[in-house]
């Protein structure tokens, strides 16, 4: 009886969290609907937009995970100096505000960027970064690191004992791939691809800046236009529904494709990969790592270079804004981790809602609800922190849920027999084993919140600007160099926050 009561208690927590997330996302959507004037003709008018949105998101997700698999594999089986630093730095593109990242990409791939200058030296035709290829390139730049980290976690979750056994049996790298790595990939890759697909669905600034023109219109831009230009709330709400359905479809496909890996319990030893200790495989991994590092770190280096030049011009308000952003990021991270822990065991799907609904719609809906009750300026910061938490929640849930299931599958019965339930189970069984993923998830949440331009613009408390908002203000006043300096501060703060959480999760752990 006691056991049953405890299980009901855990289920109740999950339900409360699910209802909380659903209320935070669906109620604002409803509020927008409620204020809508007309909902006709949206799909026929925007068919081209929907098609482009899905196509670029599909390509971006596919290429990101295809490239991430060899990178994660190389990172999983190689030990080298600076590996930990490289893994942290690889996370940087994902957490950058779009405009900062785009500037970095342009410095490398743009018209007067490094690549075209090199091509010019050899007399080759310059390449253009604009159009579909530019959009996909930027999305891969943003999401390859995310995919790599998610898949790398999978590799590290395979018990070292399996690889030792494989070596004892004299397996070749190919056989190890088939028997050990393929099942892990099957369980992880669809989920990672789904997250990236959904993320790219709501792409706005990337698609617009690098898309080259109205051919590259995404649903999110159409939502933006409906709000800002036409003030057609009905169309905005309908377009959000389309986005929600597409994201839901992607999630359903991913869940159907993902098969549980089921490796059984291991003893968490450091993984030594006997089958990969030969020359050709070493060279291959080296090439993969150098290529990935070059692709991801070169644009970052350019951001740092231009940022240092502008650092002296950064006005003091930017530092105040940095403090505001830090505060929001910490609150938002706590909220994300709490919700993700509650949802990771049950109701995982609710965690993805924040990804599927446009922040513009959530922000506007929240505004419609709160405005009659309270001056929006008073709640600008809490609302921003909450919406940021909702946006980070899908990643946190995606990272924690498979781990949580694996822990329950492998140690659940042991814990049951020991009578470990509720908080005790959380403290003694789950949290210690979840620590690495938890640190990673918290780091992501914090860094994402730092870089988010977000709904604060809609609620606008003028004395409490966030760092990205302050950066845009600098750009709007022609002060591009100072803005580059602010961008560098943002990059550094995001990386440090990410590093502290991620590192905190891995203290005393060899990996």
């Amino acid at each position, binding site marked *: 009886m006691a056991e049953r009561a405890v299980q009901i208690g855990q289920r109740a927590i999950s339900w409360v969290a699910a209802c909380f997330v659903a209320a935070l996302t669906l109620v604002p959507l409803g509020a927008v609907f409620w204020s809508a004037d007309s909902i006709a003709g949206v799909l026929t008018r925007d068919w*081209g937009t929907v098609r482009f949105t899905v196509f670029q998101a599909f390509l971006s997700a596919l290429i990101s995970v295809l490239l991430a698999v060899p990178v994660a594999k190389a990172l999983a089986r190689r030990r080298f100096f600076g590996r930990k630093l490289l893994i942290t730095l690889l996370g940087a593109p994902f957490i950058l505000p779009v*405009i900062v990242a*785009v*500037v970095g990409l*342009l*410095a490398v791939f*743009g*018209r*007067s960027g490094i690549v075209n200058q090199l091509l010019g030296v050899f007399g080759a035709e310059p390449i253009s970064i*604009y159009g579909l290829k*530019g959009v996909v390139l930027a999305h891969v730049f943003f999401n390859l690191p995310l995919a790599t980290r998610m898949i790398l976690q999978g590799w590290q979750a395979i018990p070292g004992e399996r690889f030792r056994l494989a070596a004892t049996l004299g397996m070749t790298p190919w056989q190890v791939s088939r028997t050990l790595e393929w099942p892990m990939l099957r369980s992880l890759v669809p989920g990672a691809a789904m997250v990236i697909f959904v993320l790219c669905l709501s792409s*706005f*600034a990337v698609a*617009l*800046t*690098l*898309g*080259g*023109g*109205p*051919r590259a219109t995404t649903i999110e*831009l159409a939502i*933006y*236009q409906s*709000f*800002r*230009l036409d*003030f057609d709330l009905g169309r905005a709400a309908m377009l959000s529904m389309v986005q929600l359905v597409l994201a839901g479809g992607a999630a359903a496909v991913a869940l159907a494709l993902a098969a549980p890996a089921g490796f059984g319990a291991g003893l968490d030893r450091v993984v030594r990969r006997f089958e990969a200790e030969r020359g050709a495989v070493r060279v291959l991994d080296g090439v993969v790592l150098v290529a990935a590092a070059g692709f991801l770190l070169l644009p970052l280096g350019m951001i740092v270079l231009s940022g240092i030049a502008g650092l002296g011009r950064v*006005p003091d*308000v930017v530092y105040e804004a940095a403090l505001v952003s830090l505060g929001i990021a910490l609150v938002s991270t706590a909220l994300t981790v709490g919700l993700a822990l509650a949802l990771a065991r049950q109701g995982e799907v609710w965690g993805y809602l924040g990804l599927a609904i446009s922040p513009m719609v959530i922000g*506007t809906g929240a*505004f*419609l609800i709160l*405005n*009659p*009750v*309270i*001056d929006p*300026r*008073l*709640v600008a910061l809490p609302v921003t922190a909450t919406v940021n938490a909702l946006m980070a929640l899908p990643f946190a849930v995606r990272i924690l849920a498979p781990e949580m299931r694996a822990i329950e599958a492998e140690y659940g019965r042991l814990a049951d027999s020991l009578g470990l339930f509720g908080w005790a189970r959380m403290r003694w069984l789950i949290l210690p084993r979840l620590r690495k993923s938890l640190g990673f998830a918290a780091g992501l949440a914090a860094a994402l919140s730092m870089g988010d331009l977000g709904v604060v*613009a*809609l609620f*606008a408390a*003028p004395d409490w600007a966030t760092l990205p*908002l*302050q950066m*845009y*203000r*600098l*750009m*709007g*006043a*022609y*002060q*591009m160099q100072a*803005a580059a300096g602010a961008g560098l501060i943002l990059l550094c703060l995001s990386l440090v926050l990410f590093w502290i959480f991620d590192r905190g999760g891995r203290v005393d752990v060899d990996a």
Partner: protein
Amino acid sequence: MRHLAFAAGVLAATSAVAETPILTVYTYDSFVADWGPGPAVEKAFEEGCGCDLQFVSAGDGAALLARLKLEGARTQADVVLGLDTNLTAAAAATGLFAEHGKTPVVDVPNPFGEAGAWTDTHFLPYDWGYFAFVHDKEKLPNPPKSFEELAKSDVSIVIQDPRSSTPGLGLLLWVKTVHGDKAGEVWSALADNIVTVTPGWSEAYGLFLEGEADMVLSYTTSPAYHRIAESDDGKAFAPFGRHYMQIEVAGKVAGTDQPELADKFLDFMLTDAFQSVIPTTNWMYPAMTPEAGLPEKFGSPLDPALALLAPAGEVGALRKQALDEWLSALSK
């Protein structure tokens, strides 16, 4: 929720005790920034009004109107500052704005009648400028002189999306008012000159400075920023004959609880104290030339005869048609 409402009540009560009336002005982001006109305007106005002037920022001009429509009659705003003449008809149609009842003589070109006359009954201008393509004098010594020349050349440009930004909308109306029914053809011819289309002005200008395009859609006053703030004389705008204008305006909210203060602010807006900070903070022409004149190196405006503007009442219909032409020309 109850204690949030309580907190709001406490705050309201505190300000009531202090008995300092608050004038709330909604405006766009770059106006309130520390380096924008906001701080100087606030200081100068508060010296004489015995009130607390509070700016609330919300994106750009289009976002301001959207924000006001969202809030409707419940809005806290007393004055809205930062709409432009492409938005005034839609703004007046909401019924949320009061008539100002003033007949100022302003230094804003008037393509529709007597010079200096201001006929809009709901909104008053505070600054204005011309849209123009800005280029680097050294890299592009001989810029094209019209949209046709631009289309025939291989000069590359960055523009803003008319669906998400006011400069983008300005360009759309510029091409439309110059070329009328041929606007669609002009856009088709321009398609291969357009490197990319950005969500807003900041991204486009950033791309131009990074060397991604030869020219960028901005204002005739943009080179003045580089001359004055950066001592860089290398930027210029390309004269295209007639240039489309942007006139930035402010209006009093009909439901304001501070009607007298709001009127006082609108009057203040056209005085020297306000107008003299405009050129080098907002980088636009002031609506009333300050006594001291424009700053040295700012450059005088184009001949008013070259000013181009769509009548406020026709912008709505014109925009829809021009947007369709733009979309179909550039989607091929």
